[in-house]
């Protein structure tokens, strides 16, 4: 049976309560009659033989020569791959990156290539740990390359390891990993979880530095990206594409391999989280009740550990290799096939249940800034054509939003939250007054380069990610969040969804239209 497409439910009196993710927990909420709930399409079928599909993609690439013909003895080969931020949740072993890179390495070995470097293309994200690298690439690859220094994390703050390639016609500086730039071939292995990923963004962002990133990771770009999940209306992508052109003209030869996953997000016993509520079985209901009650009694640290240990059953639905842009067109179509849902008209109030995980808190803490980024950055932008919520509308997010930070992963976030947001939440003022000092702070540089810290400037990018939403919305309310933390974000706290809806009416008027984005599983709304 083919998977059912996405679906917009109109809530009536017989509709069961709707599941809202709520950090390391979940809530059932009774939405008012007439509300809409958007459900993601069901999981697409997996590739029957992923290894064979990968082999075929490498042998029959799009708009490029077969990979074996590009490999020769004595060449310098660099394989870059997406970092810990993808996919979400982390996938069960074998990870898509392991499957693809093993295939590439087999071909390289057959061609007698022995100068191979593997680089985690993390830009200004935190360095991956050994365990994380082993999970993404497999023990065989790790043990073969890491001990001799041929498998490592990208270091955007090592001046000797970066190469300046030139400027775009808009004056954007392009600087990427020297090893990648000076290789005979750069193979980029990507996981396209959402439409924003991949394309020229892989190399132009993943292997770049603050010097380059600041040209598109800024408020003006994000506000001109409507949305950044829609490549053709995204200034973020336009900038990356211009940079991609500079990289190409500089002679960097890229063989792009992009993979797509289905949206089978939660393993048993949490698989009920991705079902439509009226299709819950008695067993699902029991699991919900049992897990809700036990989670309510579980210490936060233990809950976090339980949820962070979830490995998603999602797996490959497609793999495409070849020329960057040609590959990305196919990949994006596949992502849309999995995620796109047509929604008629905007809404006054958009509700979201934010999960425990986002791209920047894998094995970490979802701090308040990441809550903002996940809601106003990622989920708000999961649209084509028009935002789901109308201009001046209200976004209601459900999340505990604890005033808590991972001190190793997010040191600059703590200062951003304490010192920047206490002064202003205006993205433009923040960018102007504070960005440079955080970006050039030696301590943050040190922690980024030697520890496992996100770069000093990273919390700014999180805030910019939400800047389009901040400009668009009339208000943001967080249900069940730490009131102090929520207020520091510039949002309003509410104890219940009912309270939040009443508060929202002060902004959007009485009898508002309400739409709930039932994610995860991830979906993208095409708002007509």
């Amino acid at each position, binding site marked *: 049976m083919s998977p059912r497409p996405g679906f917009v439910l109109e809530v009536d009196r017989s509709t069961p309560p709707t599941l809202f993710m709520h950090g390391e927990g979940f809530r059932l909420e009774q939405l008012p009659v007439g509300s809409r709930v958007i459900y993601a399409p069901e999981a697409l079928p997996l590739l029957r033989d992923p290894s064979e599909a990968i082999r075929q993609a490498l042998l029959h690439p799009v708009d490029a020569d077969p990979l074996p013909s590009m490999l020769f003895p004595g060449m310098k080969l660099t394989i870059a791959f997406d970092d810990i931020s993808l996919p979400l949740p982390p996938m069960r072993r074998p990870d898509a990156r392991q499957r693809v890179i093993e295939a590439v390495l087999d071909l390289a070995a057959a061609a007698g290539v022995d100068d191979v470097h593997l680089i985690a293309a993390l830009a200004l994200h935190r360095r991956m740990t050994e365990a994380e690298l082993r999970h993404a690439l497999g023990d065989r690859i790790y043990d073969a390359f890491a001990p001799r220094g041929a498998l490592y994390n990208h270091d955007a703050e090592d001046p000797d390891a970066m190469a300046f390639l030139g400027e775009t016609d808009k004056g954007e500086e392009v600087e990427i990993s020297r090893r990648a730039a000076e290789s005979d071939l750069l193979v980029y292995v990507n996981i396209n979880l959402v439409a924003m990923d991949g394309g020229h963004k892989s190399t132009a962002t993943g292997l770049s530095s603050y010097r380059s990133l600041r040209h598109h990771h800024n408020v003006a770009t994000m506000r001109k990206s409507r949305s950044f999940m829609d490549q053709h209306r995204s200034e973020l992508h336009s900038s990356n594409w211009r940079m991609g052109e500079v990289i190409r003209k500089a002679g960097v030869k890229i063989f792009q391999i992009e993979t797509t996953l289905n949206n089978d997000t939660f393993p048993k016993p949490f698989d009920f989280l991705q079902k439509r509520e009226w299709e819950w079985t008695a067993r699902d209901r029991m699991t919900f009740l049992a897990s809700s009650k036990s989670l309510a009694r579980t210490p936060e640290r233990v809950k976090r550990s339980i949820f962070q240990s979830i490995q998603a059953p999602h797996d490959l639905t497609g793999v495409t290799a070849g020329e960057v842009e040609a590959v990305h067109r196919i990949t994006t179509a596949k992502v849309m096939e999995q995620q796109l849902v047509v929604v008629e008209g905007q809404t006054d109030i958009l509700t979201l249940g934010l999960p425990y995980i986002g791209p920047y808190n894998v094995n970490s803490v979802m701090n308040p800034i990441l809550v903002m980024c996940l809601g106003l950055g990622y989920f708000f932008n999961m649209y084509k054509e028009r935002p789901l919520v109308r201009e001046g509308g209200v976004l209601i997010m459900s999340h505990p939003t604890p005033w808590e930070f991972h*001190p*190793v992963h997010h*040191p600059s976030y*703590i*200062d951003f939250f*304490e*010192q920047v947001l*206490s002064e202003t939440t205006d993205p433009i003022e923040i960018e102007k007054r504070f960005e440079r*000092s955080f970006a*050039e*702070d*030696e*301590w943050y540089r*040190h*922690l980024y380069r030697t*520890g496992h*810290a996100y770069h000093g400037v990273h919390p700014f990018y999180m805030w910019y990610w939400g800047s389009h939403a901040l400009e668009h919305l009339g208000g943001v309310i967080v249900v069940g969040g730490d009131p102090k933390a929520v207020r520091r974000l510039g949002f309003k706290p509410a104890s219940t969804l009912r309270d939040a809806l009443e508060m929202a009416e002060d902004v959007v008027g009485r009898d508002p239209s309400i739409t709930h984005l039932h994610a995860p599983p991830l979906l993208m709304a095409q708002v007509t």
Partner: protein
Amino acid sequence: MKALRFERSLPRFAAARVAGAWAPGRGAAVGPLRLADIDPPRLPDGSWQRVRPRLAGICGSDLATIDGASSRWFEPIVSFPFVPGHEVVGDLDDGTRVVLEPVLGCGPRGITPPCAACAGRDVGRCTNITAGHLEPGLQTGYCCDTGGGWSTVLVAHESQLHLVPDTLSDEAAVMVEPTACAIRGALAALPLADNGVVTVIGAGTLGLCTIAALARWASPRELIVGAKHPHQRTLARDLGATLVVNPDELRRAVRRSRGSLMVGECTATRLAGGADVTLDCVGSEESLTEALAITRPGGRIVMIGMPGTVTVDLTPLWQRGIELVGAYAYGTESMPDHGQRRTFDLAFELVAEAGLDRLVSTTYPLDRYRDALAHAAEAGSRGAVKVAFDLRKEKERDWL
């Protein structure tokens, strides 16, 4: 006359210590402090005058005394029974309004020739505070011979009196003494504070006055303040702080300002660099430990808040070559332009310029001394800064 009198009573002192530890300011209910009708202090000689207090402030050192938490260091330099109160604006018999400079140095004690400090008009460093014709007592408010501000009458030596200009309200005048203390501390931060990163720990009365003094006489590149309560944060900003943070955010704020590294783990342990000067306006074990953690090697810590017996690891003081400087009282200051000024003259100026009368949050009559002391002890959490006794309507004031 009506007065709050502090008597020597070990059982009551012990009770105050227990009550004060349980709830600050509660030592007043069980301790050696009593509202009493006592004889007014006698005038030692013709150079003394009677002062009828109008307002008398409650200071942190008073609260420590009442809660039995002050250091035993003071035992030989106070004399019992005494009437507390050293932040005083009052009237002389001829109606002249005066502010009291409470240190009982060589002048009030009739000692001639005066010690070197008093000869240089630096009375805060007097070496004769137990000698002369007065009983021991470092200040009015701790000496059994002079009375104190928490009463309807005290006596003061002419060298202790400063005329109050008509333009200055009683509320402003009662702020002169604590402001003078803060000015001494702020000037002790020079020259390191000039164009440097300066941190102030605590934003009670002393902290806020210190901020105002630093803003007036130093030019710090960044003036960072750790303030616990919202009204303190607002006042700190108004008075010249460039960055105000919660006390537990101070280390990170200083680190950010200096761009220095942290030592140890990513969790804020201590800074590799740090502030050029830290002014500790709290005087607790925690505040001094914090000061040592956030002051750069070769920097200076100025202790303005009265410390008690504290246990602090002084290794950083040694290893980082930090100067630890006490800033008690007032006298004569060496100014940045190399001139000499009386601290009280500077305080009068600053109180008027910075509008420090706004720091007087509330006043109480003597009869409600327990409420007043409890309020003062919880001033921060109750949205107040300076709590004072208002004696202007005390009937006994006019009987004498």
